[in-house]
């Protein structure tokens, strides 16, 4: 070890800070579980899926606690947004690297970075005053699943595009020039050489976008109409798990409040699953390279 006393002191200080930082996730999980316990005890896990509807009361034995419509709402909105944003994100990144002249690519990248920095509440506001009236003029009921999906698409697009952009930048130049020397067409090179080489980055980008879509609260709450029911069409108003927490937390008491923490725990589990998936994809990639 280093002969310096100050070094040992510093390392222990740093370890203390890092341990504190690492403990935050544990603390979050701990408190979510702690606050969820009353609902688990008085309502039980089964009733979150089998109750007739969502009419929560502070006394868990009386209210109705069905979270399913909101869980389905969250998942459908997420799926729609990812299905739209993934091709657009891939297209944007490919555009920057292989189609646009250099100055356009630079400006386009700056623009995407700017889009990534715009607050979700501003997206939500824009959706509320521009997108929702537009949808309403086309089909009655402006605040709808469609508005949520479109807005989420715009919001997660920068995340996906920037991650894939970074992955494409890491594709070795020799691959592309080698393929070009063989006389492959531009699209042939991208599809046959670039995409396979950047596969794990593309998936990571899409997973990151998925995580953002499922956790998004403000924008979705502002444009989706927030009616608790199973979404039965693209124009149906609906409520997501996140919006439900934000809307009801202000006045929730007792088991109702606790049920909101259960939905928070559910979100957390979904996110941890996504992170684990991303990590597995990353590992696979490393094995392929070695």
């Amino acid at each position: 070890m280093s002969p310096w006393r100050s070094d040992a002191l510093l390392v222990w200080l740093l370890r203390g800070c890092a341990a504190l930082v690492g403990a935050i996730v544990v603390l979050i999980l701990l408190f979510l579980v702690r606050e969820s316990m009353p609902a688990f005890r008085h309502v039980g896990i089964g009733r979150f899926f089998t109750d007739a509807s969502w009419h929560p009361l502070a006394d868990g034995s009386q209210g109705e606690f069905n979270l399913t419509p909101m869980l389905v709402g969250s998942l459908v909105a997420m799926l729609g947004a990812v299905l739209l944003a993934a091709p657009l994100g891939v297209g944007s990144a490919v555009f920057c690297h292989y189609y646009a002249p250099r100055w356009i690519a630079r400006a386009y990248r700056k623009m995407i970075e700017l889009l990534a920095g715009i607050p979700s509440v501003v997206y939500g506001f824009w959706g509320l005053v521009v997108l929702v009236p537009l949808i309403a003029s086309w089909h009655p009921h402006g605040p709808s699943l469609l508005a949520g999906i479109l807005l989420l698409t715009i919001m997660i697009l920068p995340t996906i595009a920037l991650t894939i952009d970074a992955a494409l930048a890491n594709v070795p130049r020799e691959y592309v020039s080698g393929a070009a020397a063989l006389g492959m067409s531009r699209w042939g090179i991208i599809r046959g050489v670039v995409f396979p080489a950047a596969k794990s980055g593309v998936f990571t980008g899409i997973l990151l976008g998925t995580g953002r879509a499922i956790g998004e609260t403000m924008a979705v709450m502002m444009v989706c109409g927030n009616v608790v029911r199973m979404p039965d069409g693209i124009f149906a108003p609906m409520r997501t798990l996140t919006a439900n927490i934000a809307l009801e937390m202000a006045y929730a008491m007792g088991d109702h409040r606790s049920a909101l923490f259960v939905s928070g725990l559910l979100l957390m589990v979904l996110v941890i699953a996504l992170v684990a998936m991303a990590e597995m994809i990353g590992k696979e990639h490393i094995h392929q390279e070695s």
Partner: protein
Amino acid sequence: MPCDNPVIISPLDAPPGAVRFTRSRLADLGATIVVWLMAMLVTAVFVWLLADIVWHGAGQLSWQFLTEPSRNAGRAGGVGPILVSTGLILAVCLAVSLPLGLATAVLLAEFTAVDSVFGRLVRRSLDVLAGVPSIVFGLFGNAFFCVYLRMGFSILAGGLTLACMVLPILIRATEEGFRSAPQEYRLGAAALGMSRTSALLHLLLPAAVPGLVVGLVLGIGRALAETAALIFTSGYVDRMPGSLMDSGRSLSIHIYDLSMNVAGGNAHAYGSALVLILLLLVINAAASQMAERWLQRKLITV
């Protein structure tokens, strides 16, 4: 393939391979068109969004709007106290996250072997932390800071919640900064018999400043943009905060409240949205400028 004449003059008697060639040219053309269309679509939406905010918000912007207290639930007056609250929340957030983040980044980049268990655990927990939805941070902040630590709805609780949120971003960027410091610095310092502490303070820290600044900017951006985590931690009150224990409304919550809960609040919501976007732009520009300058100074001192 059976082909007597290797030189093809007329496309009519071209061998099958050449036909495939034109088909792939067609796919190539199609892909080019689709990619350009996608880029144009994204650009159009971006311009539409920004133009809408600037167009409607620019009329609201004035010195009075930035300094006056809000009246009539935000329909009249300005955003003065709200800007102060936003600044205070941000200050609390940075005062906590900056030292913690810097220390963790130094540990991960300089004092931990890549395969050490402790380092891997911290990294993994940061990965999860980065993905936690903001509303879950709000739930946690409410249960832990507001209720368990008895801070109530306060700027302090909001700032601490945000500090947990920005830590992963801050740490990742700062760590990159340390990794980009040349290896010769460490070897040279060791050869001169410097302690690792003084090597860190005098050589590596200055070299890592650009990374730190980038992390700082990204963190500030995320903190300024945050709404969901603050509603149930720092609260809704739009008066001038007297202390950190007072509830204070951030600019983002102001936009949300005006557009959703206040009829006729859209005009001032546009104004506030423009202020928020301008703030983010200014911080971004200033920081990239600073990073550039520091980068140059680093080059000069070498």
